[in-house]
């Protein structure tokens, strides 16, 4: 019997993962509570990206277990993990988040296209559009940007807002953000983070936020520092 914490949305136990013999990551315990905001930092090569792709169900650990909600991701076949990701996880990249051939709204609604559950939670096929517009407005995307036909005409800051809206639509339980502010200047970064946190709270989504920028850490409930093959926990 694996001792999962009940209040936890996400629990990882004794994770080991590596492409060859040596482990890229070795985590004895990593947990995220429902609605919790966790800041993950660590030097390059500490396995941040690897952790995120394990959490997203893209790859599975060589050893250990990952549970999100009631699902033990690490024991599922790839196609089921993909479906789980579509239904329960929103992902924001560092940059270049958008499909260049889709408009702003369709980029946001892409999440719903791959997950009927999230479309349902966003209010159904028609209402999901309105929810997308609401999210974009709440995340500070102005009207003129909304009506631009090509997302490539948007600024980096605007693109990240669209990406955040796509991650948030349909209120997935977990939002994973991989250095989403690193391409933004300081002012834009703070505004973006504030709005992102507010929307996560509104959707009751937990947030795992990876960044180098320790100045952002104060906005989070908890900071997790990844080191070479070790992990320390300290309260924020």
């Amino acid at each position, binding site marked *: 019997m694996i001792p999962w914490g009940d209040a936890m949305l996400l629990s990882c136990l004794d994770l080991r993962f590596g492409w060859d013999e040596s482990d890229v990551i070795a985590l004895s315990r990593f947990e995220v509570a429902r609605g919790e905001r966790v800041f993950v930092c660590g030097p390059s090569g500490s396995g941040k990206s690897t952790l995120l*792709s394990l959490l997203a169900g893209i790859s599975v650990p060589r050893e250990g277990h990952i549970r999100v909600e009631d699902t033990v991701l690490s024991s599922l076949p*790839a196609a089921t993990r*993909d479906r789980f990701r*579509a239904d329960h996880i929103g*992902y924001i990249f560092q940059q270049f988040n958008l499909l260049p*051939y889709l408009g702003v709204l369709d980029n946001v609604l892409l999440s719903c296209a791959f997950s009927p559950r999230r479309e349902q939670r966003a209010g159904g096929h028609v209402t999901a559009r309105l929810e997308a517009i609401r999210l974009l407005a709440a995340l500070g995307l102005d009207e003129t940007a909304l009506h631009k036909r090509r997302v490539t005409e948007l600024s980096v800051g605007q693109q990240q807002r669209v990406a955040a809206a*796509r991650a948030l639509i349909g209120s997935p339980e977990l939002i994973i953000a991989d250095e989403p502010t690193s391409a933004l200047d300081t002012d834009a970064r703070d505004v973006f983070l504030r709005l992102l946190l507010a929307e996560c709270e509104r959707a009751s989504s937990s947030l795992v936020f990876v960044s180098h920028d320790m100045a952002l850490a104060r906005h989070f409930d908890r900071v997790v520092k990844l080191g070479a093959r070790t992990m320390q926990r300290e309260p924020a």
Partner: protein
Amino acid sequence: MMGAIGLALRSLRQRRVAAVLTVITIALSVWLLLGVERLRQDARSSFASTVSGTDLIVGARSGPVNLLLYSVFHLGDATNNVSWQSYKEIAALPEVRWTVPISLGDSHRGFRVMGTTAEFFQRYRYGSDHELVFAQGHVFGDLYDAVIGAQVARQLNYHVGQSLVIAHGFGGMRQMLHADKPFRVAGVLAPTGTPVDASVIVSLQAIEAIHVDWQSGMRLPGQAVSADQARGMDLTPTSITAFLVGLNSRLSSFAVQRAVNEYTQEPLQAILPGVALSQLWGLVGAAEGALRAISAMVVLVGLCGMLTALLTTLNERRREMAILRAVGASARTVFLLLVLEAGLLAMAGIVLGVVLMYITLFVLHGFLAAQLGLNLGLGFPGANEWLLIAAVIAAALFAGCLPAWIAYRRSLADGLQVHL
């Protein structure tokens, strides 16, 4: 919002210049493939119906293809003649409705001269029951009247009223002319796409008349008979080259054929023109295989063009694949998307190619019918053509599996990380 097809379509629209060029390449290759197929089929069916409405062709015994070649295509020479007596006897069989005698052996400036009766113009049918039509003039009335085919008229620039002299034999160095009995063009036939186009047609009596003072291919010395003197003579031929037979009922074809083949007075044979024509097509149709192979190769080249277009963009699309994976697309979906793109490109190419083919057919239809008597069908694609279309789609989907496989492997390896 959109399914995989919608995504594939929009992704293609993003790369529309390459996509349009690819579609045009495929369209041209499909155009060629289907065009060759249609031309081939129509040429074959037009060939197979060079003689229609005739139930049997009777000539001296040699071989079916040989008889067909000299009696219908005017190629080569008859080994032997059919005596007028035998002709009369077979024509009198109760199953026989009509007969048209044919007498060959002379020529005019490279075109064969065929002696026959006026009934030839009523009985001879080609294609799907087309009758011979006069572009100018009419059937021969006078003994020294001739009717010429469309090709003869065009190449020699002859019109009604033109006078012509028939040469004895066909070609050869020592051509001897029947210069003492000149003919006059009484009629010009419309193009048929059959050997009739290259024929000079005169009456059986005329053939007899120009030969009254000849024997064994030589003019009899001191026995010249003038053109007008010949008119007064009995011009019933002693023999003919072959004759066409129409029966009261098709069902008796084999019975009459057997009767002719077993005719005791003279070694004769009767052939079913349709059967002999398809035998002959088997001999001349080798080129069609080559033509088909070439057009199939062109389609392969077109698909290779598509493959190039898809493969070259694959690298810059790694980001796109990672984004799709992040929102929950499986690696299989990525595979499917790329195969779909190949399929959509091929479909668009096929539709455009088919449209192009019909436009071409429509434009060339009149020209080919007038110049060559070749009737290209404007009908819907037949089973063969649908099969070709399906084969092109299948080949395109198969080709699309290569970039799809690469993208699949890559998106498994890349996951959500793409280091560009």
